[in-house]
Each structure stands twice: as C-alpha cells, then as structure tokens.
C-alpha cells in the first residue's frame, strides 16, 4: 500500500559502478546492464530474489515432457505493459511477445534481428540457436518450445536476463514509425518499475509501475547514480548520497563493518577461482603430475594472503550453494613430500620448468592473481618445479588461454544460472575443450563427459545431483584443476534500507525493497 498522501516519495539511490550499454539485456553480457534492465522487465521464469531457486514469473506454470524435449508454458493473464512517451499499449502481455523475444535473437531473418548491432552474445555463446528446434504459439496464453536435444538447465537459462520478455506490439509501433533502434534505448517492459529517463553516464531514473502483476513495489522512485570509482562510491554512501553500493574496495571493508549507519552484507558468491593445467601438453597430460601440484600448493596461505578473509577454500568446481555439491569429496592435503615422490614416480625426480599465466586484472573470484601466482611459484619451487609467471592484457590473456597456449593458468568463473551444468559442462566438458572454448584445461575425459552429458538429459533434479556427485569424484581424482577458492561477495547497505536481499548471482534487485522514513 502506498503511504499517506502527504508522505514524501520514497526514492532509493543505488550508486551503480558503470553505465548501462543500452536497455535490452539480450544484447549485452555485463552485470551493470543487467542490473539496469532488471527493474523494467520480467522473464517467463525468474530466480527468487536472493536465491538460485526458479519461480514462476510471466509463465504461471509449465510442463516438461518426459523425454525432456518439450516445454509448455502457460502464460499469466492480465499482465500490463508499460507506456512510454508517445507509445500506449493496446493489449496485455501474450504469446506473441514470447515468440518475438526468442525469435529476435534466434532467427537471422527476423525484422529486429540486426537492430542495435544484433550481438546476442549470451544466446550465441550458450549455443541456444542449435538447442531450440521450434518455438510455437498454441494459443494467446500458451507457448510450446521444442528442443533438439534434452537440456535440463534450459529452464534456468530462461530465468537469465537475456531471456527477458519484451513487447511485440511496441516493436511493431516503432518499426512503423521508422525508429526501431529506439526499442533498445527507450524500454517498455512489464517489470515492477518503469523507465523515466537515462542521462548518459550520470543517472538512470525509474518510477514504480503501478499496474505490475506482482503488486505495487514499496519504493516510489529508484535512481541509479553512476559512480565508477569504488572509493567515491563508499564516500557517497557515508555522506548519505546513496543507500547501497556494489563492489566495495576490500581495504574499506573493516571500516564499513564498524560504521553504525551501515550494514555490511556478505554472501558466498556463485563463483570459483582455480588453477587449470593444460592437460594436452606435457608434463600435465600425466595425472600424477597434476595431483602432485595439487598437493604442493598451500591453499591456506593463498586464502590468508590473497583473499584476506574474503574467500572460502574450494574443493569442487561448483560452489556449495549449487545443488549436487559434493560436500564429502576428499581433497588433496598440503603435502610437499608426497608431491615430490609423486613427481619422481611420474619421471620428474628433479622437477621441471613451466609457465603460469596470471591475469592482469582483479576479478570477483580472484582479488590479486599476481600475488597468488607468486605464492604458487614459491610453493612449487619447494618440489623442484620452476615456474615462470606470465601475464598479458586481459583480452589477450583470455584469448590465449582459451586457445590453450599456456601450461598452467589462473582463471575462474561466476555462475550465470545456478545450475551445476553451467560450471561442470561449460568449464570442463569436451565441447568447451576445443580451441577458443571455455574449458581452459583442454580436458576431455570420457567417463566424466558421459556423466555430465547424461545429467543434462535427466529432468529430475535429485537424479541429476547424483550424477554430478559422481562427476565431482572423477574430477578430483583426475585433477585437471587446483580448485582454489569461492570468493565472498560484500555489499554495504545503509541501515535505512529494508528488505534488500543479496543475490548469489551478484545481481542488484530492488523490487520488494523499502526505505525507512
């Protein structure tokens, strides 16, 4: 319920770390842009705020065929579209909008496919173009999607921002006016807030959408004040110029925690930082060498010195919050003597020389790769392995390790959709081991591959969890990585903010959030 008529409007200011690229998540990959589009749009399904659980959104319910190939979505009725400037919707949300949103990204001959550069990086990099077989409208409120192969994580994919539903009617309206590119700049959605204005590089302003199908959200206004520097964001928070900031500087955390006006929220992130071996190159094609390195790296000192309390030790490729996480997987102990013996057994009694790629930038899963590499270098020197630390510009770095140029490389991943597949297949499957794929260990191990492929095809979550557990045992035994850490994500929030929930995906979401008077 809105407050009394005389109450001042409630305006929450979020000091965002950057400017949105535009206002259509399908075109982008950056979390900054997703945050800015999220108040405006809904998907067929969504992640429950603060969790990875998939809940109904624009689809009220759905059925999945026993073979896992057909998804039938029953759409919510009476969902209103927002209006903007000269555009007033004449109808509610329906199946045409779902078809429009998917086909735009999928079909090269779709009238909107090449509008705004038509990148669709998520849709393409996730291979959805090959996965989708037919998307059809059964009636105004029923859509059937047929896949070319069973893919259990498909529902989780649809909860991601790139699969937001946008308006087919608005698209027609703009096309007739000859300004289709406005579609991605002047957004019209069904979400809890509607778009007011974007002043480039300064601010995005939203107002509550009174007719949102989920009921009115408590805030009247939402402002994203764009503030790229982390120190300045913190200063703004302290000065009361914003209520919430993302990505604080780690050295500021103790002071934030002591501040009586702020709450420092923290959550184990949906991420993993690791060291990958190029398993197609000598000497790392030998699993004993990989196991030896696993035993020679002192992960505790990495956690203490590099993460300084902002990381938890990792033993699996998936973080603990994800279903199927194998809590009792046996990890390698820190044991340099045993490591040296293993190396000798593998034919390297005097060690060997190798490179170690360390990324030049801070990442959510690795606050300081250079420092981490130095610790590893010192650890491995103890077993006779001489490590040369190598670094490249970030874009070049990714390209080289995705091409498999390295011998050992530090890398990591932040999950997209909370499904184990997003880590276990995407980062360790055979398809991704090809050149320029995201499996930078270039590791293709058939017993593992069979399990993760099968887990894609089984719809039942408990059965999938069992398969992933087995796969994690194989992963640990074969040791294509040294699993290092799951980083903790911090968010400083003003005490005036009520009901804000941190997201495992590091999303910043404001529906349902309120402000104390």
């Amino acid at each position, binding site marked *: 319920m809105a407050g009394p008529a005389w109450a001042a409007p409630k305006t929450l200011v979020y000091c965002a770390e950057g400017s949105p690229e535009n206002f259509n998540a399908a075109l982008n990959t950056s979390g900054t842009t997703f945050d800015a589009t999220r108040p405006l749009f809904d998907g067929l399904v969504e992640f429950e705020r603060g969790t990875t659980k998939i809940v109904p959104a624009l689809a009220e319910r759905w059925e999945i065929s026993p073979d896992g190939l057909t998804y039938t979505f029953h759409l919510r009725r009476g969902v209103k579209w927002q209006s903007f400037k000269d555009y007033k919707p004449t109808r509610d949300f329906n199946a045409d909008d779902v078809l429009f949103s998917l086909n735009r990204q999928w079909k090269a001959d779709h009238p909107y496919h090449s509008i705004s550069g038509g*990148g669709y990086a998520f849709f*393409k990099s996730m291979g959805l173009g090959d996965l989708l077989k037919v998307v059809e409208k059964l009636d105004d409120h029923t859509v059937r999607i047929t896949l070319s192969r069973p893919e259990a994580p498909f529902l989780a994919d649809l909860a991601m921002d790139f699969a937001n539903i946008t308006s087919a009617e608005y698209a027609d309206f703009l096309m007739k006016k000859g300004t289709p590119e406005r579609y991605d700049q002047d957004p019209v959605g069904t979400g809890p807030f509607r778009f007011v204005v974007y002043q480039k590089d300064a601010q995005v302003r939203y107002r509550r959408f009174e007719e949102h199908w989920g009921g009115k959200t408590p805030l009247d206004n939402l402002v994203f004040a*764009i503030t790229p520097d982390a120190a*300045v964001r913190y200063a703004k928070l302290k000065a009361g110029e914003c209520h919430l900031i993302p990505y604080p500087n780690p050295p500021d955390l103790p002071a934030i925690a002591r501040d009586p006006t702020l709450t420092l929220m923290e959550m184990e992130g949906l991420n993993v930082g690791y060291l990958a071996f190029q398993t197609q190159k000598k000497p790392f094609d030998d699993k004993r060498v990989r196991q030896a390195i696993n035993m020679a790296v002192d992960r505790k000192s990495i956690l203490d010195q590099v993460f300084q309390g902002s990381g938890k030790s990792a033993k699996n490729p998936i973080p603990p919050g994800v279903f199927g996480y194998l809590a009792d997987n046996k990890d390698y102990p820190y044991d340099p003597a045993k490591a040296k013996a293993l190396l000798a057994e593998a034919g390297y009694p005097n060690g060997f020389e190798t490179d170690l790629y360390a990324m030049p930038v801070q990442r959510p899963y690795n606050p300081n790769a250079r420092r981490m590499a130095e610790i590893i270098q010192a650890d491995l020197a103890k077993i006779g392995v001489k490590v040369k630390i190598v670094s490249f510009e970030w*874009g070049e770095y990714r*390209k080289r390790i995705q091409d498999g140029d390295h011998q050992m490389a530090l890398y990591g991943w932040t999950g997209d959709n909370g499904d184990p597949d997003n880590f276990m297949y995407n980062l360790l499957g055979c398809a991704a081991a090809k050149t320029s794929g995201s499996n930078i260990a270039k590791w293709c191990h058939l017993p593992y591959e069979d399990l993760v492929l099968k887990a894609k095809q089984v719809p039942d979550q408990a059965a999938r969890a069992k398969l992933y557990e087995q796969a994690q045992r194989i992963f640990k035994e074969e040791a294509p990585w040294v699993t290092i850490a799951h980083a903790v994500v911090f968010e400083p929030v003003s005490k005036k903010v009520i009901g804000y929930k941190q997201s495992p995906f590091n999303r910043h979401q404001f529906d349902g959030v309120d402000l104390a008077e």
Partner: protein
Amino acid sequence: MLKFIATRIALLIPTFLGVTLLAFFLIRLVPGDPIEVRLGERGIDPARLEEMRAQLGLNKPLLEQYADYLGGVLTGDLGRSLITQTPVLHEFAELFPATIELSLCAILFALIIGLPAGVLAAVKRGGPLDHGVMAASLTGYSMPIFWWGLLLILFFSVILGWTPVSGRLSAAYYVEPVTGFLLIDSWMSEEEGAFMDALHHLVLPSIVLGTIPLAVIARMTRSSMLEVLGEDYIRTARAKGLGLFRIVGLHALRNAMIPVVTVIGLQVGTLLAGAILTETIFAWPGIGKWLIESINRRDYPALQGGVLLVACVVMLVNLAVDLIYGLLNPRIRHAK
C-alpha cells in the same frame, strides 16, 4: 593577414588527417576487440565469433575499415557507438556541455586565485609570500589529480559534509536538459534549489581540475610580471612617485598579461586531458569519462569520434589564440 590566416587553416588539414589515423590505429593496437571484451570468461564457438565480427564489420581488412571511417568523417558521419548504437555525434553533443561547464568553472577558479597570487609573488619577490606561492604552485602542478580529488572528497564531503561527493545534481532533483549546461538549465527550471545544488556539485571538481592551470597561471604571471617590472617605463613611473598599486595595476599588469593570455589558451588541452581523470573521480558525465569507458569497451567508433572531436576543439582554440596573438603582435604574423 589573410595569408597568415589561410596558412594557419591549411596547416589544420594534415593535423586533422593525422588525428584520424592515430585515433583509428591506436585503439586497434590494444588487444581484444569489442566482442571479446563483452564475452568475458565465456568461450565461444569460432564460427559464431566470426558471425558476430561480421555483423560489426570488424572482419574487413583494416585499410578498408579506415577508408570507410574516413569517408564517413568527411561527410560528417562519425558512425554509431558499437555498444549503445547511438550516433557518436549525438553522444558527444549530449556530454560535451558538462565538460565545458566544468572546464570553464575550473579556469575561472584558476584565474581568480592564480592571477593575484602571481602578481603578489612578483611584487614581493624573494619574500616569504613569493616563496609560499612558488612552493604551493609547484605542489599544485605536481599533484596527482586522482589522489587530490579523493583527498578533497574525504575532507570536504565526508568529514565536513560541506560539498556533495560526486555527480552534477542530487538525486532529489531532476532537471530536463535544454542547453546541457546544468547551471543554466537548473536556473530556468521550476525545481527549487536545483541551481544551488548544481553549483555545490561544481565546487570540488572545479578545484581539482583547476589546480594545474592555477599553478601554471600563477607562475607565468609572476615571471611575466617580474620581466615587466624591470622595464624602464616602470622605473620612470616609480621615479614619478606613483603609488605601487597604480604602477602594478595600471602599467605593469596590462603588459604582463599578453603571455599569460596565451598560456590560458593553451590550458584548454590540459583541461580536457585533466577532465578525463576528474570526471572519472567525480562521476561527472562528460566526455572524459565517456572516452575512458569507450576504451574499456573497445567501442572503436565512439573513441575515434571522441578523440577526433576533442582534437578539433583543441586545434580550433589554438588557431583562435594564434590569430588573436597575430592580431595583437605584428611580429608574429610577419614571421617567416
């Protein structure tokens, strides 16, 4: 005089072409293209990657891309941003007023403090005031802008609470951009208090951006003033028994100002370069911050267009300074 102007303008053409070349090729020397930057840790099927490159025209040979770009520039089309798909000229026009507003306030600040400080230092040459001004200006000149900005924010905004931390206007106000100059727009708008709020937001960034020009102006004024104060006509004025104020204010200052005016003109480049850092610290939505973001995103057209337009502004201001100087000083325009 006409020949002088024509020569100066003709010289702009190679400079202009040079800037297009530099802007085009330098950003392409930076590894990673816009698509790779967007993909992040995500791998992609090489065929899909090629498809996306082709969509942006990045698969064409570099020279062909440059020819396309130059052709566009010559017809006034700077292309569209690869990221936002907005015409580059449009983005520039939207953001440039913020940079001009900040730069004008910064130079105003530099003049108000720098001129009197330089004059005083010259008049009190060798005294503690002179040493103080010189030391302060050397410190100001060597101050890393980033650190200086954060220091001022911490002191004035966080500890004292006198000034806002960053941005151009508080979230409580919304002023529809008309001219793009927020002081003017907020003055004309119905929003009560918006003008004062905008003015408050200008204080710290103007000080930070104005610090280096201030130091330069103070030092230049001092040395130019010293030179003039040693001239015969000043001695004559002194001999006549004129007061110090009249000698300095009336006789010396006007002549001492000629080189200072030139230096002020040349500060435009410094201001625009400084704006890149200042705008990033103060989240000031101008072209400096825009250029930085364009580099990070490898937004080639935005960066090329932005660099070119900024270079044009600097060239035109320098041309204007040259012409004015030539007008004032015949020795320059007749020089071979």
